[in-house]
């Protein structure tokens, strides 16, 4: 060896068939090779370098290790001042474990004598090819930020998606390996035996790992070796916030809905009267007025957060009872149908909810100053909620189907929308004179709002017919008929009471005798609606969409997909649902387009459709494999065995579709 020049030593294993030894992280069990160097003056020993491992599966467990052959490298650097002409003795105690089904701990002592010379050492020619080969198997270090990962939880499993651009690892689209696997440096973080699912999305690849059940949070960094084909990369993946398509459109609608809430008869007067009083009070101090505005906003937000909390608790309770708060659950759809139907009648003025609460708490708003405006905000929501309910209902129903965070943010947007006009007036009090005066137009507006609600009922009925068939729709319509009759009777009763005060019952009991049958009919109507819910026989499952012919599409099945992939046939997957508007638009504009159909035919693609209108575990599982939790999802498997699935964008144009198909 030459002083000051590092040289590489190798430890070579030849392993009998059926046996294996372990990588630095042995996976579920095992023990890596360890070298303990005897200290030698003038020599510095580097870390043991491991080649990239292979996955060795055994039942539900898996190890990371080596079969047949493995070569470990270590760098030794002689100090510059080492006198030449001497020989140095290197000595290492080694321990390792070999396992087949049984495990044998082994140990050995390696020693080596090397002369120190003032010239480059003669390399052992016989071993040179082995060293070169070993070097190609040592993972190449890649800069941080090349790979990131995000977390996703579903059904008690915690998934990690590794996200990276193969281009930045030096792969061109034509040289892209098909097999990828990730080996973490540290044990206990991921399930070693779990299948790692790969998808292609745009230019990037995504590899799904299953996180081990950990107590506490998953670390924000994940270091390990990523193996693609026969190349390996030592990398540190940085956590990125979980990938969530931010519900911008929903937020926009919630915000607009919030503004609309101000036009409801019970809120609008609060708005103008309160602002007027504030304007008068703080005529000389516009900054005070602004603080009032913000306090009001906070008050509204605060009340909506309370509402969110209540909703989430209800949802949690419901989930424990096994109710699904999703549009796939026919029960939930029927609940929504009745809710919207009743709220529509409420908007029409057939009955009013909770008018008695209205005066309650108004004394709080008479307080002076900032707390007064805060409570005006609280009052505007809490006390006015009953009259806003018809408009809020749909938003709340929708929010219930969402994740916790989304529910929260939608309701916050609703709150901000509601507070915005007030806040605006506090900044620009002069526009107050442009505002319409409260008056009968408000009642007209309120009644008009019933019709969008009835339209929603119509759409929900269609979704229900897709899920459970036309018979249960008939039952629900019958239920609505009964409910309508009950509401009409209630209104007649109320009007009679007004015309002939003598009819006014003397006691509470008398009143209930009259109202009792009405409520009974309403109750019966609702029961009738649920009575008819029967799951449609599964044989029809994929011919559900009567609006579009399913010619050319076969129902999705994971086994079928696998067998098609094994023969290398191209497959296009289309996951859709009746209640998904984007899906329906894509169906009509893209998949029913003759040009697109011709293109598919030319490619010889098998077209598979997964209809998620109803709860279907096989489809839910398939969606998760592509990193999605909802529809639409479009996936393209090009011709050839084991080609990677390409996930297409949700909003399709013919152009993007064709670009992916190429």
């Amino acid at each position, binding site marked *: 060896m030459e002083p000051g020049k590092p040289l590489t030593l190798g430890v070579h294993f030849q392993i009998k068939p059926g046996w294996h030894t372990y990588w630095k992280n042995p996976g579920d069990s095992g023990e890596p090779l360890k070298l303990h160097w005897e200290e030698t003056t003038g020599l510095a020993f580097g870390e043991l370098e491991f080649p990239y491992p292979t996955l060795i599966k055994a039942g539900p467990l898996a190890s990371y290790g080596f079969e047949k052959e493995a070569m470990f490298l270590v760098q030794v650097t002689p100090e510059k001042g080492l006198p030449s002409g001497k020989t140095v003795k290197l000595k290492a105690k080694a321990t390792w474990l070999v396992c087949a089904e049984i495990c044998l701990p082994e140990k050995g002592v390696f020693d080596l004598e090397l002369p120190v010379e003032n010239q480059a050492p003669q390399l052992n020619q016989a071993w040179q090819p082995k060293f070169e080969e070993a070097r190609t198997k040592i993972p190449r270090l890649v800069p941080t930020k090349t790979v990131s990962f995000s977390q996703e939880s579903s059904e008690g499993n915690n998934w990690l998606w590794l996200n990276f651009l193969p281009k930045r690892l030096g792969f061109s689209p034509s040289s892209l390996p098909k097999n990828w696997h990730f080996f973490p440096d540290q044990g206990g973080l991921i399930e070693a035996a779990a299948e790692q699912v790969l998808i292609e999305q745009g230019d990037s690849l995504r590899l799904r790992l299953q996180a081990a059940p950990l107590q506490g949070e998953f670390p924000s960094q994940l270091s390990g070796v990523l193996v693609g084909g026969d190349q390996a990369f030592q990398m540190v993946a940085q956590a990125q916030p979980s990938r969530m398509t931010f519900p911008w459109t929903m937020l926009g609608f919630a915000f607009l809905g919030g503004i609309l809430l101000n036009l409801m008869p019970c809120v609008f007067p609060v708005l103008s009267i309160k602002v007027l009083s504030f304007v008068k009070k703080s005529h000389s101090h516009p900054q005070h007025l602004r603080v009032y505005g913000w306090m009001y906003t906070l008050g509204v937000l*605060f009340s909506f957060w309370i509402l969110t909390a209540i909703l989430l608790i209800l949802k949690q309770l419901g989930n424990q009872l096994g109710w699904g708060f999703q549009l796939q659950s026919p029960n939930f759809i029927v609940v929504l149908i009745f809710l919207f139907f009743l709220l529509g009648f409420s908007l029409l003025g057939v009955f009013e909810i909770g008018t008695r609460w209205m005066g309650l708490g108004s004394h709080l708003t008479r307080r002076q100053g*900032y707390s007064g405006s805060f409570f005006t905000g609280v009052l505007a929501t809490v006390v006015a909620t009953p009259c806003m309910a018809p408009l809020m209902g749909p938003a709340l129903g929708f929010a219930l189907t969402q994740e916790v965070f989304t529910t929260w943010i939608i309701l916050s947007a609703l709150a901000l929308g509601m507070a915005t006009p007030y806040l605006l007036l506090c900044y620009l009090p002069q526009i107050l004179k442009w505002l319409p005066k409260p008056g009968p137009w408000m009642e007209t507006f309120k009644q008009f709002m019933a019709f969008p609600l009835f339209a929603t009922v119509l759409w929900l009925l269609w979704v229900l017919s897709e899920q459970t068939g036309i018979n249960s729709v008939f039952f629900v319509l019958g239920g609505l008929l009964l409910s309508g009759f009950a509401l009409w009777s209630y209104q007649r009763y109320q009007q009679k009471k007004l015309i002939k005060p003598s009819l006014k019952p003397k006691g509470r009991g008398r009143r209930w005798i009259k109202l009792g049958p009405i409520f009974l009919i309403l109750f019966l109507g609702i029961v009738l609606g649920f009575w008819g819910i029967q799951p449609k026989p599964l044989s029809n499952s994929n011919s559900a969409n009567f609006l579009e012919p399913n010619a050319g599409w076969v129902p999705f099945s994971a086994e079928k997909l696998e067998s098609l992939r094994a023969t290398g046939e191209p497959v296009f997957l289309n996951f859709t649902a009746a209640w998904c508007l984007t899906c329906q638009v894509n169906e009509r504009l893209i998949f029913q387009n003759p040009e697109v159909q011709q293109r598919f035919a030319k490619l010889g693609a098998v077209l598979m459709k997964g209809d998620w209108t109803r709860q279907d575990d096989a489809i839910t599982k398939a969606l998760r494999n592509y990193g999605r939790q909802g529809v639409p999802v479009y996936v393209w498997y090009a011709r050839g065995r084991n080609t990677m699935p390409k996930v297409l964008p949700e909003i399709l144009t013919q152009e993007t579709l064709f670009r992916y198909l190429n």
Partner: protein
Amino acid sequence: MQLIKKLFSSSLLVISFILLNLTAAQAATAPDFSLPGSSGKTVKLSELKGKWVVLEWFNEGCPYVKKHYESGNIPKLQKKYTDQGVVWLTVLSSAPGKQGHQSAEEVKKTMATWQASPTDNLLDPEGKVGRLYGAKTTPHFFVINPKGEIVYQGAIDSISSTDQADIAKAENYVDQALSAALAGKPIATAQTVPYGCSVKY
């Protein structure tokens, strides 16, 4: 203003509490099982509520198990804690024909030669309970509190090797967990990566 502040902080508390409840992992309850023991009795976990329970995955042929039995390390712990009322159960999840598969008589004999005194040795040749708990190695430990929650899971100690000389240098997690638990103190390390031979399912 005071009132508003109070209202705000309390509502934030409520909301964060709910969010926590919805998102945080539930306290890991130990799944119930029932297995025949080498004593001839059937052991049902839910009937052991009110007691501290240790589950130890065992394979007589595994060098890592041998390390801790031949040195007397595990037998000593078994004695120390069963004397204090802890139920110490070894579990044999090796499939028939694979290393570590033993009959009731065989495992009793093995334990006798090692002077070990577990409360019972559970026979799980189908690996049902092993898979239920996700037992990966022999040894692999689970400590269960009287409420039936897993309070420690993982390795016996901090040095993964088959060398008996390492036992003295290592931090013994199982000993730490049990002594803290019995003294009514919180358990410092609740989860580690187990080491050893793979369970021969």
